[in-house]
């Protein structure tokens, strides 16, 4: 591990969220704010002086209670949020994955959805046409390609979501993969198995991976190292077994 390049490096990253006591987001409210002075806002640290690094091919797990700052940390690394202080260096294509299927339009057909979600995930129309058959095949919904998604059962929807998401990710071949609370794809047992095999393929293809999960078994099974996050701080960094053990007695 020593000579491998560092893909993600965080040095003293901090992030504050401001929470207003009263919501004043209307047009009139803003004007009142200007004339009466801005109301005081409560600030708190979501991330407080976080430093660690991830090398190529390494899989890191992050555990912690709700609100510990796990998702915020991933979003900062992904560039969706910006940190208030500290230095973040990432080297390679970053993909942030939080659940499959945030954007299916139920009034569009399955084929139209594949093109829509695929282009949101950054694939060109040409790439999508090449991938189309594979996505349909994997989802096992071949006969419903031209059916509108609102007529799908929940299981079918999650299979479609997973299939689009995973194939687009594999196509982008990310060097840095940030997985937020997703492992597997819903659906029945058979699909679940297929989905987990696909996920394993994804995380083992040499990318640096950070997994945030409440499933401690997942962390233990796949990760080389784990971090325990509490109130925005890293309180423990060790092999997964020990971190999980420590988390359970807290």
């Amino acid at each position, binding site marked *: 591990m020593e000579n491998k390049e560092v893909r993600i490096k965080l040095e003293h990253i901090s992030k504050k969220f401001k929470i207003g006591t009263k919501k004043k987001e209307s*047009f009139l409210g803003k004007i009142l704010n200007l004339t009466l002075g801005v109301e005081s806002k409560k600030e708190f640290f979501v991330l407080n002086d976080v430093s660690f690094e991830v090398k190529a091919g390494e899989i890191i797990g992050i555990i912690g209670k709700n609100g510990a700052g796990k998702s915020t940390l991933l979003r900062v690394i992904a560039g969706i949020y910006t940190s208030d202080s500290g230095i973040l260096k990432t080297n390679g294509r970053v993909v942030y994955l*939080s659940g499959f299927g945030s954007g299916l339009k139920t*009034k*569009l057909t399955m084929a139209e959805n594949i093109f*829509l979600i695929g282009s949101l995930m950054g694939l060109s*129309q040409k790439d999508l046409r090449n991938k189309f058959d594979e996505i349909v095949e994997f989802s096992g919904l071949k006969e419903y390609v031209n059916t509108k998604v609102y007529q799908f059962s929940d299981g079918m929807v999650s299979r479609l979501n997973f299939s689009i998401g995973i194939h687009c990710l594999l196509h982008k071949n990310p060097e840095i993969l940030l997985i937020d609370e997703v492992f597997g794809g819903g659906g029945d047992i058979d699909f679940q198995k297929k989905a987990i095999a696909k996920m394993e393929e994804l995380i083992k293809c040499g990318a640096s991976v950070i997994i945030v999960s409440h499933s401690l078994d997942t962390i233990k099974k796949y990760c080389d190292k784990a971090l325990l996050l509490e109130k925005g701080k890293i309180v423990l960094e060790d092999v997964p077994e020990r971190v999980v053990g420590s988390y359970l007695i807290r």
Partner: protein
Amino acid sequence: MIKGSYNKLKGILGLSLSLAKAQFKLRNEGSYLGIFWYLLDPLFMFLILLFLRNVLTNKSVEYYPAYLFLGLIMFNLFRHGTISSTKVISSNSGFIKTMNVNKESFVISGLLQAIFSHLFEIIILISLMIYLNISLFGLLFYPFIFGLLVIFILGFSFILSTLGVYINDLANVWSVFVNLLWFSTPIYYVATKGNIHFLNKINPLFYFIDSARDSLIYGTFSSFDNWIIMITISLVFLLIGLIIFYKNKNKFAELA
């Protein structure tokens, strides 16, 4: 460096187009009249204003139907483009919070839809011009005026989409402003002096509509001053819009 920004621009435009396509399909979903809805709204407005012609304006205008319709559809482009931009970031917050997408695409896709309906309206305009025996030669100049108008609206949309993140009810406020703007633009009337004329002069849309009428309907090349004003307005607005948008876009994920 140049190749990088070229690819980025290509990515942004490609995504904008896909989004606009999906929106277009969603809008016409399960509707028998389909794309005719795009035309019905301006057509009815046109017919009503034409019917009220003698009440609304006492001047006789040559080729009044074309004069009215061109003003109407250019204003509509502005109206639809800007109104859709006020809510575009918050209505796509699901994507913005979870994916590192180019946020410009959401703004551009709204404008693309407005442009799409505008193209249909242009077809009606052409039939109207043929009916009124107006030479179609002036149409050659329209792409330039249209291009500048689109740049102007795009700049405006960037400003509004950023403000919309901070101000929840901007859409309501903006539609009131658009109505004010509607009456201060010479769409169904002509003003050559007085307060109204002054109001027209400080309204950016006036210059675009005026130039388009000059070249399309009356076959005269619009004055040099008009062109300078149009170019300046559109570039200045685009610049301001881009600056405001880029200064704030990193905060969208937290606020939307």
